[in-house]
């Protein structure tokens, strides 16, 4: 389909379904917005079922159940079955906390195809400290074993940063021990809560280079056993990442309350009234919503993007990062060396050479914190 602007609009490939913002963990790099949706405003089972049908008809092929922690939704088994029934390939992105064999069996029966399990560290004490949850690490070991026993492929997602990069070798070994088919070594992306903790989490150049070499050696050593995907932090990049493969090109994100976004951080951008699944169908939103058109394609770009030969490779980088660092969502992502704002990243990198301050755990205002969950 072609929009009035002459942009050729392909159907979206994947839907990130954020079922809830509730989560037992309090990771300091939480990518959810500072302002979390409460349980009382979450979409109900019926609405999600309709949305999955609309997504499949629109051309969505994969759905990633995410959050928060999707397992806190009591209707998760029904939601997985509903999504699978309409032909979506269902992936569960989870901390693993409170997943037992019986529930996993029902999820598999419902059509779950794959589990992505988060891992905070290789060391149980340090892992629990990052997660802000006593016993998290042990729970993850048990869940990994359950997933493998159920015959599902397992991806371990290890978020790495300045405080755990020295354990990277052990993290990779642990992923193998856990039976993972894939490991994502993902450097923290600095949005939301993570941006507030940037000084505590951003690695130094030296740490980053060591990590990159460690990953490359492990890829070679483990080829055929473990696939390792590696996400380099923007702050040390020369060119920006093609965020979401371009605004409104590949992905849809639906928040717990039903807002439809081009990426999960897009609500940080001011002045964009995002539509909800209650107001319009996904197809109407994808093809006709002004906010999806706002940064789609290349017509919105200013220099240096506008005339750049990489404009349809990088798509201008990340709008949320451009806004968070420059105050203007339409500027070139400062991660690009061609950006006039690239110096902003140099300042952050420079401070990564100094002693790291303590990080601040994610706070969940709606959830009273139990003393047993406090770890320091």
């Amino acid at each position, binding site marked *: 389909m072609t929009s009035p602007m002459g942009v050729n609009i392909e*159907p979206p490939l994947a839907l990130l379904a954020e079922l809830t913002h509730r989560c037992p963990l309090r990771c300091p790099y939480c990518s959810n917005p500072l302002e979390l949706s409460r349980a009382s405003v979450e979409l109900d089972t019926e609405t999600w079922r309709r949305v999955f049908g609309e997504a499949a008809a629109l*051309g969505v*092929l994969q759905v990633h159940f995410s959050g928060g922690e999707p397992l806190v939704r009591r209707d998760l088994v029904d939601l997985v079955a509903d999504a699978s029934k309409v032909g979506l*390939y269902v992936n569960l992105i989870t901390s693993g906390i409170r997943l037992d064999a019986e529930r996993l069996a029902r999820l598999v029966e419902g059509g779950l195809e*794959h589990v992505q399990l988060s891992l905070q560290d290789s060391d149980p004490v340090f892992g629990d400290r990052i997660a802000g949850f006593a016993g998290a690490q042990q729970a993850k070991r048990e869940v990994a074993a359950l997933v493998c026993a159920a015959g599902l*492929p397992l991806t371990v997602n290890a978020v790495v940063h300045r405080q755990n990069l020295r354990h990277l070798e052990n993290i990779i070994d642990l992923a193998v021990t856990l039976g993972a*088919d894939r490991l994502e070594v993902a450097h923290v992306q600095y949005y939301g809560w993570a941006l507030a903790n940037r000084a505590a989490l951003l690695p130094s150049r030296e740490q980053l280079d060591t990590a990159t070499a460690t990953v490359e050696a492990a890829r*070679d050593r483990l080829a*055929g056993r473990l696939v390792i995907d590696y996400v380099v932090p923007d702050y040390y990049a020369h060119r920006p990442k093609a965020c979401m493969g371009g605004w409104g090109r590949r992905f849809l994100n639906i928040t717990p309350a039903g807002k439809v976004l081009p990426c999960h951080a897009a609500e940080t951008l001011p002045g964009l009234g995002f539509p909800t699944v209650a107001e319009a169908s996904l197809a109407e939103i994808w093809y006709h919503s002004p906010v999806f058109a706002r940064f789609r394609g290349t017509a919105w770009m200013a220099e240096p993007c506008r005339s750049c030969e990489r404009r349809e490779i990088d798509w201008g980088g990340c709008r949320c990062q451009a806004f968070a660092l420059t105050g203007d969502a339409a500027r070139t992502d400062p991660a690009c060396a061609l950006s006039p704002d690239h110096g902003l990243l140099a300042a952050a990198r420079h401070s990564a050479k100094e002693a790291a301050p303590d990080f601040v755990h994610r706070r969940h205002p709606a959830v009273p914190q139990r003393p047993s969950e406090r770890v320091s």
Partner: protein
Amino acid sequence: MNAPRINGDAVLRFAPHARFRFDEVRQAWIVLAPERLLLPDEHAVEILRLIDGARDVDVIIDELAGRFEAPRDVIAGDVLPMLQDLVDKKVLRQ
């Protein structure tokens, strides 16, 4: 490197959680796998449609060489790297 290297007598099939199917919306063949989505071009589709857990790679190459009336080593030069890549990505297995 300890990746399984495939050769002519390898018999390949799709991994249990890889789906190779026709997408009605795009009118195109797709491969779905854990956090991977492949949109194979028409040559790749021709190759993948011959992956059935029974034919070995040599038979597949012979069949494609016959069908496209192309030299066998040219076809093999396309087919082997593509299949190896999919084995490495755990989309196909022996």
